[in-house]
């Protein structure tokens, strides 16, 4: 099938304008770009169905004269969904304006923090630095308990090495 020149040109133009707007920092222009991209894509889908023909309605055209109905069905729902998403984006613009009086896409602070941080997370703390009752068993050499074992042991076994592990009583805090 031979393509037209007009449709690819229109499609390319709409895509270029849409992408340019999409890369803007203003959320309004991003939405406008999104709409242009939606229009361009719909046109692309439709143009891929072949040359123009008669409407795919029986009684109006014979089967051989009809344009391809399938891309039309796909595009139809796409139009309505684009509308729904646009409304959602607009609600986001509205909310952003309500909260911070601007509708600009900011640089994400959390990402910035991650990018600059030295890399200490609560979970990669060295077990040796934890309080004994939080230390994983098999790690420490001390034994916390509800009875003050450590002090009693320190008195009784001064100088005797111990290699024990911090297990809290599994029965809970009864003594």
């Amino acid at each position, binding site marked *: 099938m031979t393509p037209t*020149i007009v449709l690819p040109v*229109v499609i390319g133009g709409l895509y270029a304008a849409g992408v340019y707007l999409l890369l803007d920092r203003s959320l309004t222009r991003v939405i406008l770009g999104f709409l242009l991209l939606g*229009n361009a894509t719909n046109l692309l889908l*439709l143009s891929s169905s072949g040359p123009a023909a008669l409407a795919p309605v029986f009684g109006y055209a014979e089967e051989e004269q009809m344009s391809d109905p399938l891309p039309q069905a796909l595009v139809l729902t796409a139009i309505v969904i684009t509308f729904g998403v646009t409304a959602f984006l607009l609600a986001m613009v509205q909310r952003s304006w*309500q909260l911070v009086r601007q*509708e600009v896409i900011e640089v994400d602070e959390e990402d910035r923090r991650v990018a600059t941080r030295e890399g200490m997370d609560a979970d990669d703390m060295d077990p040796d630095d934890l309080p004994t009752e939080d230390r994983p068993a098999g790690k420490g050499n001390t034994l916390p308990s509800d009875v003050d074992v450590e002090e009693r042991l320190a008195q009784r076994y001064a100088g005797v090495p111990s290699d024990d592990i911090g*297990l809290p009583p*599994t029965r809970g805090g009864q003594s």
Partner: protein
Amino acid sequence: MGLLLLLHLLAAVAAPLLVRWWGRQAFLALALVPGAAFGWVLTRLGTVTGGGEVTETLSWIPALDLQIALRLDALALTFAALVTGVGAMVLVYCARYFEPDDEGIGRFAGVMTAFAGSMLGLVLADDVLVLYVFWELTTVFSFLLIGGSGAKLAGRRAASQALLLTTAGGLAMLVGLLMVSWSSGSRLLSEIVVDPGSGPVLVAGTMLVLAGAVTKSAMVPFHFWLPAAMEAPTPVSAYLHAAAMVKAGIYLVARLAPGLADVPGWRPVVLGLGVATMLIGGWRSLRQNDLKLLLAFSTVSQLGFLITMVGAGSEELAAAGLAMTIAHALSKSTLFLSVGVIDHATGVRDLRLLSGLGRRMPALAVIATLAAASLVGLPPFLGFVGKEAAFTALWEGGVPDRLTAVVVLVGLVLGSVFTAAYCARYLWGAFARKPELPDTAPEELEHHPGPLFLAAPAVLALAGLVAGPASPLLDHLVVVYAETLPLIAPEAEHLALWHGLQPALALSAVTLLGGAALFALRAGFSRLQHRLAVGASADEGYWNTLQALDRFAVLVTGTTQRGSLPTYLGTILVVVLLVPGSVLLARTPWPDEWRAWDTPLQALVGAVVLVAAVLTIRIRQRLSAVLAVGVTGYGLALLFVLHGAPDLALTQFLVETLSLVVFVLVLRKLPKDIGDRHRPAERTVRAVIAVCVGLVMAGVGAAALSARTTPPVSEEIPRLALEEGHGQNVVNVILVDIRAWDTLGELSVLVVAATGVASLVFLRSRTGAVDRVGEDQAAGGGGDARRAPRRQWLSASDTLAPQRRSVVLEVATRFLFHTIVVLSLFLLFSGHNDPGGGFAGGLVAALALVLRYLAGGRYELGEAAPVPPGLLLGGGLLLAGGTGAAALVLGGQVLESAYLEADLPVLGHASLPTALFFDIGVYLIVVGLVLDILRSLGAELDRQDDEDDPADAAPDEVIAR
């Protein structure tokens, strides 16, 4: 067998309920479930010792050729009896271990029972995938049991450590199992061991499977999760981490040894890790002062012993290993349960603080001594029989290579010396009266162990005692499995208490004497251990690895996530340019001939669209830019018309109009101009990317037509629409019938979008209808003295301030509203045969609502549509989905349509496709979507203005939805 597993599942689900009814006594009822399984397993003893087996196959996913293949042979029976028997006993023990007022018993009971079931499934599974599923189930339940309520940091860490290690091993094992079954051509374990195949795939698969077994059974260097798992309540330690779950690795090695023991690498890994684990575990065990940890390291040590025996791949050692597995499970769970009793009675587990308990709890002391004696290998216990058999086997054969046999034997003897020493230390620590210590407080034991509390350890300890003299009977069972392995020693030795004066007897004596000596010299040995202690440990290695992983994740995140949306989008677009763009340039067959246009009008409209697009970029005024985009939209609608797509054109026109309205609703709150100009360099980069993307997409559009090689799928669709869908408008029939599933999904997206809009605008409650006119709005707009005309064109327009009213618009609305609604219904009902349908009809009705809102304000909207939008959205989705479900109920496919025809008195010949109901659902959802948008971005914003309510949450306000 499937029934038994189902029984466990039901019991696990019912357990929390039972605990609520009966308190801790519910454990006694739950114990009946593994108890029943134990009974059933024993009834099959005759079949299995006779060389038979019980198999069962349940259909699982026939399409994938997956089935639940279960098989009970000698090995499975041994482990199944252990798992169910010990499980029942531990559950009985739980009935006294917990206090009636303890929290979380229900959850614990459920998880524990579920674990028992999955462990049973693991040993019964014959299909490798079923085995894997049960394997991971035990991991997950172990995680839940170690972590407990999740309140303790140490518990959480131990749980996640165990989970990480065992699932990592489990995943390796899954890959390994798949490779092994590929190599052998069967997924059934029973067939794999008969013919495992050969080649590098088998070797690699075997190593991966061993990785799973080694992590699960806490072999060096992955042993450290097991002591950490002692955070769990003692019944869990006794069952999961002594008798059952850690034995899964032993089981898997024993299961595969008949087929895979001769695979290169198997023996070095299994024997090397096994002996090393036995020595390291024993060494570490002697350094522990917490009785539970002493036992944990002892378990590590014994697991090394067991895996060495069952993995050696010879008949004589496998028999010894199986006997020793039983002995270990019985005695170790007893010892753990005894610690639980001591812990329960005194609140102390440190052997440096316990003194004189033997006299105060004599029954417990006897029970623990029996169990320890079996573990040490004193005659006449089962442990003695097993150890004796192992030593004999290695003395005469055991492994093909003599030198290896000697090294392994030396290692095992040394490990057994440690075993004897730590068992003595355990008994001494727990029960002896230490002269320098006062008797353990409190004077009156806090919880004196009752008979039921002691029943479980007593039964298990006595079983170990009885099984020793009865070992010739046990031999009948063990030998059925062992005979599947080659005999390496000159002759097979049967399990028995007395084999005469043999070298093995002397070795047993050596272990006992060595252990006694180590125990006697414990102070000096302890100093020696302290001196030899090394700084590094596997545990630290684990934490360092995790830490490195965390750092790496931060590094990667920090490098790739720069936090700027334009950068991300730009990256994506550049990739689009580089990959599909270069394919387009290099590989695409370009069309040979071009047409200028379909009609000249197309070129004209196209030029307008392009001009509007350029204007959109240039204009800095918000509303004007929106209007320019609107021009491209309307131009597109014209292009649709020219292309032969009236439905599309209709929808595009309507949507474009609605979009303009929504834009205006939001933009009225924003400043007139778009501020924040970009730097010229940024603009240049953007322009370059944009132009390139435009060129590529234009190329794609041109190439798509000539790249088509097969006839389009839609060739048949018009005929189908007419004959099957009974509709003349093909596009509509596609939407509501041929591709109705698709449409249903898209409707859901619309519902989500509407909900999202409402959620962003309504902060507190987003349900309910739009406000209607009430008493207090009679003269709105700030009490202006000049009243609106008495005759009302619209019912609520006098709530508006007079300067905001337009009589022309009110009159026009008054005349047009009903006409538009009727038109929308016409479009809906005629859509099946003419352009129109649910989408178009709904949009037209929505425009009618927009008109009412614009003319009369927010109360007018409430008068026009006094229904909550949620009702329309939900009702529409229900109707559309219900049409599909109804077809299913009536025996058709989902969303299959039917067709009713009748001659009616007045209307004449009428026809009704069921797809119409689907289309009504579409109609309702579109109306609901627009109503929700108007209610949120229109009426609610008006209200916030009117009432000067910024609708922001107060600082300490908690908004619950």
